[in-house]
C-alpha cells in the first residue's frame, strides 16, 4: 500500500497513470449525474411546502458539499506539501483551488436562485451559512491570487499553503453555522433521515456522480499542473521528444 502511494506521488508515474483513471471516474460519474438529474426532475414528488422549487437541491447540495470537500483536499494537500515536501501535494492543492471556486460559485448561485421564491430575496447578508460560504469563495480567490503573484513556485507553494491552512477554519464554521447561529438556511436533512426515499435517492446518486466527475476533473488539472512544474526535467523532455518522434 505504502509502496503504491509512494509510486503515485512520483510526478512521472502520476502523469502516466492519471489519464487511465480519468475515464473510470468520468463515465460512471456522468451516467450517475444523468440519472440523478432525470429522477430529481421528473420522478421525485414535489415537496409539500416548496413545490417543484425544491428540485434545485439536486445541483445545489452536491455543489455545496464539493465546495467544502475541495477546500479540505486543498488544505490537507498543502499541509502534506509543507510537512513532507511531497511535490505532488502542492500540485494537487494548486489544481484543486479553481475547481473549488467554481463549485462554491455554483452553490452560492443556485442557493440564491432558490432563495428568491422561497425566502423572497436573492441574498440575505445576515445569514451565517451564506456569508461563511461567500467568505470561502473569497479565500479561494485569495489563494489563487497569491499563487499568481509569486513567480517562484516553491515560495508560492509555501505562502499559499499557509493561507489554505488558515482558511480551513472556515469549513467547520460553514457546516455548523446553521446550529451555532440563527439562520434562514435549513439544518441538516440528508444525513438525519428527514427526506422521503423518493427524494433522497436521486440526491445521493447526484452527490456520488458529481464527486466522481470532480475526481476526474481534479486528476486532469493536477496532470497539467505536474507537467508545468516538471517542464524542465529530463523525463518531460524525453516524453515530448518521443511523442514528436511518433508523430513524424
Amino acid at each position, binding site marked *: 500500500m505504502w509502496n503504491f502511494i509512494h509510486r503515485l506521488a512520483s*510526478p*512521472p508515474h502520476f502523469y502516466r497513470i492519471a489519464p487511465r483513471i480519468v475515464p473510470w471516474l468520468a463515465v460512471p460519474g456522468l451516467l450517475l449525474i444523468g440519472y440523478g*438529474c432525470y429522477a430529481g*426532475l*421528473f420522478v421525485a414528488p*414535489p415537496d409539500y411546502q416548496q*413545490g*417543484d*422549487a425544491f*428540485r*434545485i437541491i*439536486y*445541483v*445545489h447540495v452536491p*455543489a455545496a458539499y464539493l465546495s467544502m470537500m475541495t477546500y479540505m483536499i486543498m488544505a490537507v494537500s498543502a499541509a502534506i506539501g509543507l510537512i513532507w515536501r511531497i511535490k505532488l501535494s502542492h500540485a494537487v492543492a494548486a489544481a484543486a483551488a*479553481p*475547481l473549488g471556486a*467554481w*463549485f462554491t*460559485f*455554483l452553490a452560492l*448561485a*443556485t442557493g440564491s*436562485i*432558490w432563495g*428568491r*421564491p422561497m425566502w423572497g430575496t436573492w441574498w440575505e447578508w445576515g445569514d451565517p451559512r451564506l456569508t461563511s460560504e461567500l467568505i470561502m469563495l473569497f479565500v479561494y480567490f485569495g489563494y489563487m491570487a497569491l499563487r499568481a503573484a509569486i513567480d517562484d513556485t516553491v515560495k508560492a507553494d509555501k505562502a499559499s499553503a499557509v493561507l489554505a491552512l488558515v482558511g480551513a477554519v472556515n469549513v467547520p464554521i460553514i457546516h455548523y453555522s446553521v446550529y451555532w447561529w440563527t439562520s434562514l438556511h435549513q439544518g441538516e436533512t440528508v444525513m438525519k433521515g428527514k427526506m422521503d426515499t423518493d427524494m433522497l435517492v436521486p440526491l445521493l446518486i447526484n452527490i456520488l456522480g458529481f464527486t466522481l*466527475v470532480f475526481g476526474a*476533473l481534479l486528476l*486532469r*488539472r493536477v*496532470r*497539467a*499542473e505536474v*507537467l*508545468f512544474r516538471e*517542464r*524542465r*526535467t*529530463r*523525463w*518531460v*523532455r*524525453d516524453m*515530448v*521528444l518521443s511523442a*514528436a518522434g511518433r508523430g513524424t
Partner: protein
Amino acid sequence: MSAFTMGSYGGYVWSCFAMAAVVLIICDWRARVRQRQVYRDIEVRIKALGPDNAPGEGQ
C-alpha cells in the same frame, strides 16, 4: 408541459441545472486548455533550444 413549467418555478429550477452543466463544461474545458498550453510551450522550448541542448534536470 408541467414538467417544464415546474408549477411556475421552471425558470428557477432549469436555470440552476443549466448553470451546473455550464460549470462542469467550463471546468473540463479549462483543464484541457491548460494541458495543451503547457505541452505546446514545452514543445516550442525544446524546438528553440534543439533536442540535444534542451536542459533536463533530474529524473
